[in-house]
């Protein structure tokens, strides 16, 4: 018997191995998640006057990429060779320092016009990643050129759209907490180029970009009551929307087509969701319940609206057809859910969650599944999506009488949480679409 058992064991052990036919097949199911080492040598200045521009643009491209947390810049001191833009790439030199990506570029200056061109290489594959590109712009918009280059590099390596050449509208706050002054401002996604849209004469809240990035809707207390306004970002002219005596309107959001908005209207102690056609001024009520329905957000295809409601007794998230109808509850976890925002990619809904005395920014599938909390603090709220649907920006406020709000961003993986630099306290961010 022992002999038979041993023989059987031998056969059982040998059969699978002997069964190999054709090539050796293995399955890789575990990998590593770490920043991709990338080399970004200072772009070549093709004209002497372009040297400073080349240096600044290179730095900004690197900052954009490294800031995502997906890349790790290899120090220039480690470079073995300094590639010319049109010279053949010495891949061995870059492999030696473990650079997996290589960005080369050249900058020329003709009068006030900058021309920036770049190429991206996959070092270990020893081949370019996509074709070389060239951007032209005035020196005043050099940052946008750098962001464009970074967007291209990011997109080619990750397969996702970039978000560097975008802007963020927010509310800048000054003064003590009990007498805060607020004004609308717009800045680059990285906190640069801040410009103010309103003065501090009245409280403003919740700015929202239009899908084309040319308009902004927000809530203002200019009349003493919350009222929705629309501002043209070309002319900075603002006009009230959906004026109706005895009502308060707030929490506006553009439809994907930019021709309608949805918002909350409070009348007689009841708050419901309405839609407004910006062309005709036609207003339509989408919910009818004695509870509070607010913070509506369109799905990217414009067919559904997610909003928050306390109709069940606590604040929860619901989804309903764009024309109204029976809402479907999608949040069932402990705590309260609010300020839902549909991802521009349509795959997730971001939200604010309050539970056990803590606030969180989280994401869930549009059916409410796969809920994940990305942050936790004394007060996190008001998420907004980057144009590529990969990053969220939100408001984080510190506790205490001296607590100040600030803007933070986080990858939807929960990694790379960092503060967005602003000149002072800031809140209510709204991310624009990619600039043209």
């Amino acid at each position, binding site marked *: 018997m022992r*002999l038979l058992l*041993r*023989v059987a*064991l*031998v*056969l059982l*052990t*040998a059969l699978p*191995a*002997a069964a*190999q*036919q*054709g*090539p*050796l*097949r*293995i*399955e*890789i*199911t*575990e*990998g*590593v*998640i*770490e*920043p*991709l080492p990338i080399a970004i040598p200072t772009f070549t200045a093709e004209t002497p006057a372009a040297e400073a521009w080349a240096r600044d643009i290179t730095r900004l491209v690197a900052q954009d990429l490294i800031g995502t947390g*997906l*890349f790790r810049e290899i120090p220039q001191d480690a470079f073995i060779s300094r590639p010319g833009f049109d010279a053949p790439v010495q891949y061995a030199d870059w*492999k030696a320092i*473990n650079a*997996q990506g290589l960005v080369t570029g050249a900058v020329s200056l003709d009068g006030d016009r900058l021309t920036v061109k770049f190429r991206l290489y*996959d070092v*270990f*594959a*020893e081949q370019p*990643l996509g074709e070389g590109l060239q951007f032209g712009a005035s020196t005043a918009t050099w940052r946008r050129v750098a962001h464009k280059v970074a967007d291209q590099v990011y997109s080619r*390596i*990750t*397969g*996702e759209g970039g978000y560097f050449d975008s802007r963020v509208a927010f509310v800048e706050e000054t003064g003590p907490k009990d007498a805060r002054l607020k004004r609308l401002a717009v800045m680059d996604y990285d906190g640069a180029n801040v410009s103010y849209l309103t003065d501090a004469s009245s409280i403003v809240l919740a700015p929202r970009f239009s899908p084309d990035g040319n308009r902004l809707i927000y809530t203002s207390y200019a009349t003493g009551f919350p009222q929705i306004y629309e501002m043209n970002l070309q002319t900075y002219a603002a006009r009230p929307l959906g004026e109706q005596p005895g009502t308060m309107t707030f929490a506006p959001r553009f439809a994907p087509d930019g021709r309608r908005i949805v918002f909350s209207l409070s009348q007689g102690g009841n708050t419901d969701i309405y839609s407004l056609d910006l062309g005709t001024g036609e207003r339509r009520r989408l919910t009818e319940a004695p509870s509070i329905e607010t913070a509506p957000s369109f799905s990217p295809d414009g067919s559904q609206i997610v909003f928050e409601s306390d109709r069940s007794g606590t604040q929860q998230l619901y989804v309903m057809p764009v024309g109204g109808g029976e809402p479907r509850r999608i949040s069932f976890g402990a705590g309260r859910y609010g300020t839902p925002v549909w991802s521009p990619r349509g*795959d997730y809904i971001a939200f604010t969650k309050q539970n056990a005395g803590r606030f969180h920014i989280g994401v869930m599938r549009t059916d409410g599944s*796969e809920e*994940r909390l990305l942050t936790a603090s004394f007060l996190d709220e008001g998420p907004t999506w980057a144009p590529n649907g*990969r990053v969220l920006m939100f408001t984080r406020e510190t506790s205490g009488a001296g607590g100040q709000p600030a803007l933070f961003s986080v990858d*939807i*993986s929960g990694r790379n949480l960092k503060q967005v630099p602003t000149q002072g306290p800031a809140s209510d961010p709204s991310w624009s679409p990619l600039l043209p």
Partner: protein
Amino acid sequence: MRTGYWISGIGHGALVTFLLFGGAFTSAPLPPVEFAEVTIISEEEFAALTRPEVGPAVSAETPAPSPPEPTPEPATPPEPETAPETAPAPVARETAAPDAAPEAVPEPLAPEAEVAAAPPATPVLPAPEDTGPRVGEPVPQEAPRVAPDAAPPPPPEAETAPVVTERAAPEPAPEPEVVVEDERPTAPDEATTEIVTEAETPAARAPGDSPRPRERPQRLAAISSGQSLEARSTPEPAAPPEPEPEPQPAPAAEPEPEPEPAPVETVEPATPAQPEPDALEAALAQALGQPAETAPQAGAPTGPPLTEGERDAFRVAVQRCWNVGSLSSEALRTTVVVGVRMTRDARPDTASIRMIGFQGGGEAAANQAFEAARRAIIRCGADGFALPPEKYERWAEVEMTFNPENMRIR
């Protein structure tokens, strides 16, 4: 009909009777376990044990100490116990002898025949070191026996065999093998690898491998050259293949493989004297993919398969460089199958890396996933993967499935 019943009844009755009284259900008694000795060992025995231990050190030196008291003590029972202990001591010394063998190692380096010439398994340890990459992995397990394997790695150098044989001759008994050289032509190239192993543990395993013979007629041929194996039953089947190469005239026609045969034969003479190891052990070793005695290289992917350990090591080596941190969420939902051709030094032929297929995402996402996979293969294969060179036929072509399911954002 009734006749049938009668026959059936009688038959069944006989069977039942046999089963009941024939001892069919009686199991062979297990060998008694000797444990009494453990308890028996007390003071005297322990003392006896300790003395012998000391003895080894002095053993050669002094019988004098033993005479005084130990002699009386040696109650026969304790001695047997002590005996085993003493035995180990000598063994160690024997190993020391092999250590000297390492010196021979340098010789084997040049030719494989050398290895064979150094019949003692001792050279094994050094040999693997020298051969490093090729024999390295498989050898370690069979260290004691595999010693010859170390030599096999050089197979390509077989050509130099002639020169080597000269060296071997001076050392042990290669000269008689000069005759063997004549037979060399008979052994095919494959013999090289196996020869080494056989050289070390030839006679013992050859017979026990009865299940394997199918795959390796040639090996048998090689073995046949060393007639020492003839005495064994299993080698016979191998005989048929041998006739083909043996035809000495063939050597002229087939000069290529010849060099290797020489080492084989040299090994054989040495091996015959060796005792036979357990055939099952050999079978197990083969089942586990150890390159031990058998010579694979017959057809395309006919060599010994990779062991699970070797496959895992390969997989881990690749996944160590598979960085999905910069992949899009759609790419993280895409499984890609990547094909790659490997060079003999276990490096990926970068030009051969291709996407065979993908699943779960669009083409753009698949391309992103493929690029990450390609980077992983190239990066971690730059210095060569730890794959057994003697199994090259098994991993010359590789298909890797990169499944990011466990790496997705959750």
